Each structure stands twice: as structure tokens, then as C-alpha cells.
């Protein structure tokens, strides 16, 4: 039983509040990933679970026990530290076996498990190196091995793969998932890598500014973010946001309008400021629009920078009224830009006039003032009053 439950955890450093009133429950055997901007309190939250930081307020439960006042060693947790924190005076073998030796496993067993763990992190043959003689990524792998060798009930991993290359990451990712499944351990994981968060987690917990924003399965966070913050944070590149205002029968922005029935949207009325969100992959060139079930009306745009990424190409679009916006501006914040992602074989060039459409089923609306999500997907709305949907207006 290694359910982890945080109850109203708050942590203050002097004036600064690092974590504010966070409550969440991680089920036994669940894999939960914390994501959030730098400094939002991910590591601090983990430390309260590990027992390294005493929360200023709130309680921590592991299993059925209140462990708030328990020493780290008695909590049955293992942790991979963001700053790696290898013992510089021990070689790799000693680092990895540290916890086992403390528990007086016999040498045979220790060696077996260390070798197995070293194998998983691909460090065979480096067991007698000192940490100072290793590269950054190698050190990080030692840190991971040190945690996994112990088969604890609860794994805490703070950016364990930050220094690894893509290939190794993928490998480690699968290894960690396998371990998770085999050991049936509860895992709390911090990463800034979207792919990791999406593929590994049962649920993602999005933190911002010390506060929990949403905790939900990855695709729910991706497809139904509860607020502007989550919407903008999950997904890379970020979702496009366009501020607008609800009018009689649609949403008007500086550059374009989207038809909809405002009354169908809960909690807002005509005249309210609403932000439209759409992901880059849901912006399509009008010429490919026929594949979409519910496209919006075409929007005039001009391509700015084209960023080929190999497997996809990012196209920065300047909307009609965009006079001289520079391409560096973050499309998520510039009201006159849209980022579109297309396949590499798409025939598109910089500084070319194009028409784009948005996939209505993928449009999100947020209350601009509170940031709260209003609806996800406009196609569901008109289902009830079919009359309003099809009309689309140019900007």
C-alpha cells in the first residue's frame, strides 16, 4: 500500500511561498508526473513527500499512515535528485549500493542488484569510476540507478532524464515504465519534457506558482485543459491564443471571427472577453481543409518564418492586420500571430499569402478574466441547436 496523499500542503521560505495549499492523491501503483514552469514548486512538493522538507502546513500520508513527522528513511521512498547529488567520495558502485548496504543486504545480493541496475541505466563497466570522472549524463544515470536499486514503494524522480540524449531518454523511459509496472511502485515524477509526461504518466499534475492547476490523464490535460495556463503549458509548441469578445452570434477577434451561439457557453454572456485557443496542429491550410469535419471560415494570413523540425515544420503566420510583428514574438502572446504545424512535405514558403482554417472541434474557449476553460471543441455546441453552427465569417 503506497498511496501518497498530500493534504493542503503549503511551504513557505520566509516571505516566499513555494507551494500553496496543494492537495492531491496518488493511487497505489500510479505514475503521476508533475509539470510546471521553473520555480513553480515541483521539487519542493517532492521534498515534502520524501520528508526532506517539513511542510509549513498540511499533512502527508503514505499508505494509510500520516508520515508528516516521519524521517525520510522510514517512509520507504527512493528519490532521484534534480541536482543529482552523488556522493563525491564514493565510486559508482558505492553510490548505487549505498542504500542496500545501509540495510545490510549481503554482498552477493548487493552486487547482483547493483549490476542489474547499472545495466538498466547502461553503466556497465563504469562501476569503479568516481563521479568526478563522469559526464553529466552518466552521473545522472548513476542517480537513477541509486534509486531503482532499492525497489521502494514510492519513487520520487526529479527530472531524472534531464541530461540524457533523445535516444537514451526513450530507452530510459521504457525502462522506467517497465520497472514501474514490475515493481508495482507508486511513482511521482518531475519532468519538463512533454513527451515524457505524455507517454509515461497515468496522470499529469500541472503546477503553477505553487498552486495545483489540474491533475488528470495526459490526454485530458492536452485536450481539455482546465484553464489558460494548462492549455498554454501543455503541448509544444504552445497552443495559439487569440483574445476576442463574445458577440451576438459568435466570437470576434482582431483578425477573424468564429461563429457560435454564446448562450450555449456556460457562465458567460455576450460582451464578455473570451480567449480562443487552438493548437498549431489544428491550424490547417485551407487547401487541405476538406479533411476536416468542421473547419472555420478561412483566415487570411501571411507566412513569416518557416521552421523545419525534421518530422514537422512550424509555420509562423502573421494575420491580416499584423503590420510588422517580428517572428521572434511568442505566438502564444502576440495577438496577431498564429503558429501552424504542417508536415515536412507541405509545399509552403516564407512570406507567402495563405488562407488557413481552424479545426472547430479543436478550438478551446477560455474566460479571459479568470483564465478558466469554457468549452473544448466548438462542434459539440451546435449539436443542440444545429442552426447556428455552419455560418462562418471572415475577419
Amino acid at each position, binding site marked *: 500500500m503506497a498511496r501518497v496523499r498530500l493534504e493542503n500542503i503549503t511551504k513557505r521560505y520566509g516571505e516566499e511561498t513555494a507551494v500553496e495549499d496543494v492537495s492531491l492523491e496518488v493511487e497505489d501503483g500510479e505514475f503521476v508526473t508533475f509539470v510546471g514552469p521553473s520555480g513553480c514548486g515541483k521539487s519542493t512538493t517532492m521534498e515534502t513527500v520524501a520528508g526532506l522538507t517539513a511542510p509549513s502546513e498540511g499533512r502527508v500520508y503514505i499508505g494509510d499512515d500520516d508520515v508528516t*513527522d*516521519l*524521517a525520510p*528513511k*522510514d517512509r520507504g521512498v527512493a528519490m532521484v535528485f534534480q541536482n543529482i547529488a552523488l556522493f563525491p567520495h564514493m565510486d559508482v558502485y558505492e553510490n548505487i549500493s549505498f542504500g542496500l548496504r545501509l540495510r545490510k543486504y549481503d554482498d552477493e545480493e548487493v552486487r547482483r542488484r547493483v549490476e542489474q541496475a547499472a545495466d538498466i541505466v547502461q553503466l556497465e563497466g563504469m562501476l569503479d569510476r568516481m563521479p568526478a570522472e563522469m559526464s553529466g549524463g552518466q552521473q545522472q544515470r548513476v542517480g537513477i540507478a541509486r534509486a531503482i536499486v532499492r525497489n521502494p514503494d514510492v519513487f520520487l524522480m526529479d527530472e531524472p532524464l534531464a541530461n540524457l540524449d533523445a535516444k537514451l531518454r526513450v530507452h530510459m523511459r521504457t525502462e522506467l515504465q517497465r520497472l514501474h509496472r514490475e515493481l508495482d511502485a507508486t511513482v511521482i515524477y518531475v519532468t519538463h519534457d512533454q513527451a515524457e509526461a505524455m507517454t509515461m504518466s497515468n496522470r499529469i499534475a500541472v503546477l503553477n506558482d505553487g498552486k495545483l492547476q489540474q491533475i488528470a490523464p495526459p490526454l485530458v490535460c492536452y485536450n481539455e485543459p482546465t484553464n489558460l495556463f494548462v492549455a498554454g503549458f501543455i503541448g509544444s509548441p504552445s497552443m495559439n491564443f487569440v483574445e476576442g469578445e463574445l458577440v451576438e452570434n459568435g466570437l470576434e477577434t482582431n483578425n477573424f471571427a468564429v461563429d457560435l451561439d454564446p448562450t450555449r457557453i456556460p457562465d458567460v454572456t455576450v460582451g464578455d472577453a473570451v480567449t480562443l485557443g487552438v493548437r498549431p496542429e489544428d491550424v490547417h491550410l485551407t487547401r487541405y481543409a476538406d479533411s476536416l469535419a468542421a473547419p472555420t471560415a478561412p483566415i487570411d494570413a501571411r507566412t513569416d518564418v518557416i521552421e523545419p523540425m525534421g518530422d514537422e515544420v512550424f509555420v509562423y503566420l502573421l494575420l491580416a492586420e499584423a503590420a510588422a510583428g517580428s517572428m521572434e514574438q511568442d505566438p502564444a502572446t502576440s495577438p496577431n500571430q498564429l503558429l501552424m504545424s504542417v508536415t515536412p512535405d507541405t509545399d509552403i514558403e516564407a512570406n507567402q499569402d495563405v488562407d488557413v482554417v481552424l479545426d472547430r472541434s479543436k478550438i478551446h474557449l477560455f474566460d479571459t478574466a479568470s483564465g478558466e476553460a469554457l468549452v473544448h471543441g466548438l462542434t459539440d455546441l451546435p449539436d443542440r441547436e444545429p442552426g447556428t453552427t455552419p455560418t462562418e465569417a471572415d475577419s
Partner: protein
Amino acid sequence: MENLSEAAYAYLLLLPAFALLTLIAFYPLIRTFVISLRANRTRGLDPLGAFVGIENYVDILTGNARLARQFLDVGLTSSFPFVELGTPFFQQALFVTLAFAVISVVIETVVGFGQAYVLDQDFRGRRWVRVAIILPWAVPIVIQGMIFFLLFQPTVGFGSDLMQSLGIFSATPLANSRDAFIIILVADIWKSSAFMALLILAGLQSVDRSLYDVARVAGASPWQRFKLITLPLVMPALLVAMLFRTMDAMRVFGLIESTAGCTTVPSLSCLVVEAMFGGTRIYATAAAVAFATALVIGLIIGGYVLVFRDTEGGMY
């Protein structure tokens, strides 16, 4: 034990230290303090007389105590600088002690830093150089005194002749307070620089080397690396070294006793020991001088603590 609060845990860890210190240090000090408030009795079995309050302290400060030498002999005048030294400078315990402490600690710090820097380098035979530099520290004070005593014995050592021919010393330096002061200073620097060097070396060795890489890339010259990285990071260790060297120097006794003698260079500790063991059993006065000495040291250290309180990584 792990479940104790941080404070309770800290007190638990401090318990053994304070238990030992209370029994062996604080308790004796309190008793000594009580002694200092009583009168001397030079005859009879009991060495202490009636309770006299702070009379002993008044006596040592006013020069009325039965000490062979002056604790402090200044008179107040109406004209600048408003104080007037009575006994010559090098004959006043307080001044001698202060001068000795300040000069020796300053020089030892510099020399110790130099030595530590040399030892921090990697070179063949470093171990033996380290032995060499540590050696003076391992010398018993009697021997340290003997070396310098003999060196400046005109018939034995060449020190007197050499220094006299250089015009620095008189013919009998060990009998001359100023010369003897310098000899004691040199002897102390010779021995105690090693103390500084060892502590500073430990500080140097604890500095994360990658910080030097950063500084080098940032464009720091060796001197700047020293000033901006080494010094501040070694500072806590250095401060401890200086703090304890200062206190040690303020309590100098054995070295003086075994070279020039307390007559030539009286220090505060000289007064304590002479009062206690000088044959005239004036324990109360000795206790009072000891506490007065502690007070002086306390004032100096208090100044230290104030000045360096904000030093990064400092202990306050």
C-alpha cells in the same frame, strides 16, 4: 530520535559536549570566579579569606595588587591623548599581550596563507614539504622556547651577534624587553603559522574546483580568483583560525616563560601563573587576573564577531 523536532535534536547532539564542558570547564570557571571575590590568605591552610567583592579587580587595575608586574599602568591626564603610560610599554602586561596578539596573528595569517597555498599545489614531495611545515607546530613549547633561548644566548647561538651587527638588537636581547618581545614574536610565528596553514589548507581543499573553471572562463586572473573565489570560500575557516590564534596569543605564557621569562616580557597569563604559583599564594588575585584576562579577550573577540558577523558562511 529521528522524530524529534530540529531544535530538540540539536540540543540532544549538544548534550555530550556541554556535559563535558560543564564539568571540566564551566564548573571550574564558576568556582574560580567565586575565588576571585575573596581575599588572599598567604598563610594557613585555607588559601582564601573573607568575601571582598570586586576588591581584587580594583586592586589589579589600580596597581595595588601584589603582582610582580603591572597589569596596566596608565595615568589619566588633562591633555591629549589623555592617558599617560606609566611603566614602559613593553613592561605592561596588557599592552604587551595586545601588541603580541595583533602582530603575531596578522603575520601568521599571511605566512599561513602562503604556506597553505604552497601545500595546496600538486608537486612531487608534497607530503614531505607538508611534514616540514607542520613540524614547528608539533614542537613542545619548552623546546620551542629552548631553541630561541639558545639561539639568542651570546655564547651559544649566533642570533644575538647577527642581530646586533645588523643594529637591530642590543647585546643582550633576552634581557631587553623590546628585543625579547621581537624574539618571542618570531618564535611564535615560526610555530603557529603552521596552525594557520593547516586550517587554511583544509579550507582550500574544500573549495569546489569547478568554481575555478567558471572564474577562469569569466576572465579572472590568478589574483582575482584568489580574491573573489578562494578568499571568500576559505573565509569561514580562516576566521576560525584567526579567532583561535588571537585567543591563544592573548594567553601566551609558556613561550615567554621558556625564553626571556615573564620578567622581561610580561603577559597577562604570566601574571596569572605567577600569582598562582609564584610562591606567594595569592589565589584570589590570580583568579581575578584570569577573569580580567578573559574579559579583555572577550572584548577583542566580541569586536571580531561584530566585524565579521556578516561574512558569508560565517558561524554566527
